[in-house]
């Protein structure tokens, strides 16, 4: 065992290993025992790390937690936190790849919809952390739409998300807000959701295929003409004028631009 005194940075990197992996290495030589061995003292910090991150994940993924039960969730969170420690000091940003972890976490294989429920809960969390901007007034567009409509692109509300899943995650989410969970038909067509912040809450609703194609194309910064093409390719009866009117009326756009070179 080395007896050389570690620098502060060396010591902290060693303690990091002890907290993340329980590997105390040579740290005990640097710690006063005083009746309690160094490994036991370090375990307090590791336990705190795992417990508090488990709570943070439970706050962000409450329905996932309910679906698998608290004990299993704590186990999954424990594994995740050890392998994927936070990079940000803001814990609401923790868990961005928790859904991917669940998808590759073998004990979760029996619940094939679970990763998508986690993805959905992450989007709700991410949406709540975005600001609301004043919506673009439809009148601001009136003058330009007539001649350059095809070239217009929009900047959407920062909180807006477009989300698809083969599982009815919205129904699963709603069912798990009640004490008694009612049965859910898991067989469904792909669902397409628009998620956004509305004041103090996060709201979402399902969109039909064409509306989803239209709005998610605009969210991807495609111009109006390209968004129309995306929508009509899935529904030839798609009505662009009505769709744009509704899009603006719902306050989804906050600004617009012309991008003729991208058409």
């Amino acid at each position, binding site marked *: 065992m080395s007896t050389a005194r570690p620098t502060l940075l060396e010591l902290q990197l060693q303690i990091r290993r002890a907290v993340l992996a329980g590997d105390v290495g040579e740290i005990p030589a640097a710690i006063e025992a005083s009746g309690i061995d160094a490994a036991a003292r370090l375990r307090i910090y590791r336990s705190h790390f795992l417990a508090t991150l488990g709570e943070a994940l439970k706050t962000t993924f409450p329905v996932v937690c309910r679906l698998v039960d608290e004990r299993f969730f704590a186990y999954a969170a424990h594994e995740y936190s050890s392998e994927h420690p936070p990079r940000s000091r803001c814990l609401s940003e923790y868990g961005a790849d928790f859904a991917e972890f669940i998808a590759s976490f073998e004990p979760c294989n029996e619940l094939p919809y679970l990763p998508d429920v986690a993805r959905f809960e992450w989007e709700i969390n991410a949406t*709540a952390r975005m600001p609301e901007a004043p919506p673009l007034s439809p009148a601001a567009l009136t003058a330009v739409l007539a001649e350059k409509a095809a070239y217009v692109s929009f900047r959407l509300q920062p909180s807006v998300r477009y989300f698809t899943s083969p599982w009815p995650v919205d129904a699963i989410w709603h069912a798990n807000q009640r004490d008694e969970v009612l049965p859910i038909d898991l067989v469904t067509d792909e669902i397409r959701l628009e998620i956004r912040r509305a004041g103090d809450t996060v709201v979402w609703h399902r969109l039909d295929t064409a509306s989803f194609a239209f709005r998610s194309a605009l969210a991807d910064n495609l111009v109006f003409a390209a968004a129309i093409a995306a929508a009509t390719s899935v529904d030839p009866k798609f009505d662009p004028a009505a769709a744009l009117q509704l899009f603006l009326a719902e306050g989804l756009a906050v600004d617009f631009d012309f991008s003729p070179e991208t058409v």
Partner: protein
Amino acid sequence: MAASKALNSRKTRQLPVVVERPPAAHGKIGIGLRSRHVPKITADRPALDFLEVHAENYMAQSVALDRLLELRRHYPVSLHGVGLSLGSGELLDRDHLGKFAALIGQLEPILVSDHLAWSAVGGVYLNDLLPLPYTEESLDLFCCHVDEAQEVLGRRLLVENPSSYLRYRHSTIPEASFLVEIARRTGCGILCDVNNLYVSARNFEFDPLAYLDALPQEAIGQVHLAGHHAAEDVDILIDDHGCRVAEPVWALFAEALHRYGSVPTLIEWDTNLPALEVLLDEAGHASELIDVHCSPNAA
């Protein structure tokens, strides 16, 4: 343990009382704001002098921040950092510091604080306030980081004493002296967390009153009060902010009041969160103790 014996032995002693201290520039009693309590505080507007929030919970332009800005119209806010990691043996996270500065611009807090601790290294955040070895190396580094933080934030920082579960063999400076020296070199203030002091004093069998005596009154900018519990498997007290303030901590708070006078005092409660009324009851008790121990007629 030695610490509690020392405390008990002082209970009956007549101590000099600070009576000349001017009223605190900002109100005396606040509570830590938790999101679950926001609707009730917004609706009832309980009599509190300030609310304190963890800076890291409000660094996005979120629903939570908008609610806090609404409350900010009615209550001064104190901003408590848990992630500056002033004790890291590497550079401060400039991105995080920038977000902290932006939040100060939005909230105009009455107080800004963080900890005598480290919590991040090598790009990983350990979500805990880990203890430092108290050496000349870490003292120099910590002071550099406080200087940089105060420069970027444009505010005087308060640095909080930690609760500790381990100490390093190669520490050469007593914690209180380390804290006092940081304040002397950087001009920062000290946030005296009385529960942390009690927990550390019990865990390492030192005299918390001597620690209080070592901190200069003029450096004390705030006091924190919170709960703790005893670990199940080892003889260690754990600071958990998850229960009422323990009686010996109230007694130590009274000792702090005798030494420092009335300073802004916070009830912290972060886990096992009870109804708001419980926090208000604790705040009420702290207020009573301030009145008893800091009034001009206090004996």
